[in-house]
């Protein structure tokens, strides 16, 4: 098992254009990152193409890692998921014959002064807190995060009106926030 500090050291070396470290980082994390791409895109070939894009982004953006203040896996997972969802939305737009703006590179968030205090005070993890939600609502949150579902996708999946879905999900997020800060 590669530890958090191993992955951090690898990212630091990738920022220095160390190809050996890049290969090692790929070997340590590509299984998880492909799982995320596949979960969102549901197409093996497209997921692997996306994985390739993710790692090229890592190669080019590794020097940005430190300033995000995230744990290394959170950074990698967030990056992979956002790129996969960009692809998913582009595919959906192409199917619907609409054009839209590529959001693509979302700006890096950084913790504000109070963020580390908030993080430290949270003992409950999201997985435990999802268990406290009604089953369908927990599934909706997972659908949005793990499968990149939009409100419209979720409304169709759970056969409820769009506004109902939106209300459900927002209440779920509020409950999660309360639960995690307990």
């Amino acid at each position, binding site marked *: 098992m590669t530890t958090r500090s191993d992955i951090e050291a690898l990212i630091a070396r990738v920022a220095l254009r160390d190809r050996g470290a890049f290969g090692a980082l790929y070997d340590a994390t*590509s299984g998880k990152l492909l799982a995320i791409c596949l979960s969102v895109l549901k197409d093996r070939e497209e997921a692997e193409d996306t994985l390739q894009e993710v790692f090229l982004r890592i190669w080019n953006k590794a020097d940005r890692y430190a300033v995000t203040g995230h744990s290394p896996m959170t950074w990698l997972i967030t990056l992979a998921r956002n790129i996969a969802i960009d692809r998913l939305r582009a595919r959906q737009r192409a199917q619907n014959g609409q054009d839209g703006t590529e959001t693509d590179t979302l700006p890096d968030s950084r913790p504000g002064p109070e963020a580390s205090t908030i993080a430290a005070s949270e003992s409950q993890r999201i997985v435990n807190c999802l268990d406290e939600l009604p089953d369908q609502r927990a599934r909706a949150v997972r659908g949005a995060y793990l499968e990149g579902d939009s409100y419209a996708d979720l409304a169709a999946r759970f056969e409820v009106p769009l506004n109902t879905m939106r209300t459900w999900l927002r209440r779920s997020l509020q409950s999660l926030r309360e639960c995690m800060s307990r």
Partner: protein
Amino acid sequence: MSADLPEMPDDDDELLAAEYVLRLLSADLEGVAARRVAEDPEFAARVHHWESRLADLAEELDEVKPSPRVRRALMASVSGAPESRARRWWLAAGLGAATLAALAYVAPLPFLTGGPDLGAELASADGALRFEAQVSGENLVLARLEGGPREGRALELWLIAEDDPAPVSLGVLPDADMAEITLAPAVAARLAGGTLAVSDEPPGGSPTGAPTGEVLAAAPLVEL
């Protein structure tokens, strides 16, 4: 949806941040939120926090081994990239032996010829600020691994030579993760046995030529 636009109470911002991270917002609102991430530190912190909370969900996914073509294509596409001069010393000094043993792909280490002369790992007591330094001849490379200057302050690098307790300034650190410093030959000659230190200074560096603020991290230079 217009109810979600900025200037709302905390709870609405919190939900907007969560929806933004989940990618549930319409393209328009996502653009608004993305601008706020760039401009509003408090909102960015909320987004950051949700990213971190939600990323735990990925633990539920079983890893999927990619086909070998992906790795081959990636390694081919990065193989033309220029290699940093710092690479060899990173391999030498950046990782402990235990880590090296755990990582198959760093196995053949081509760092022994023409490598660095001296190195140091500097860390603050709480680990919030960390640097690695390496010297080869008159070139000093300093990589910032963690942390940075305090708000409105600068970091300055010093040499405390073995035979002289008065620190010599090696320069104010740029706002970059890597700094390359060319040392004067007289300074380079005094490095062996010396100590590197990083101090907290006003913008532009110490006005006196000696450290004026707290010494945040220090470490002896060791032969590599």
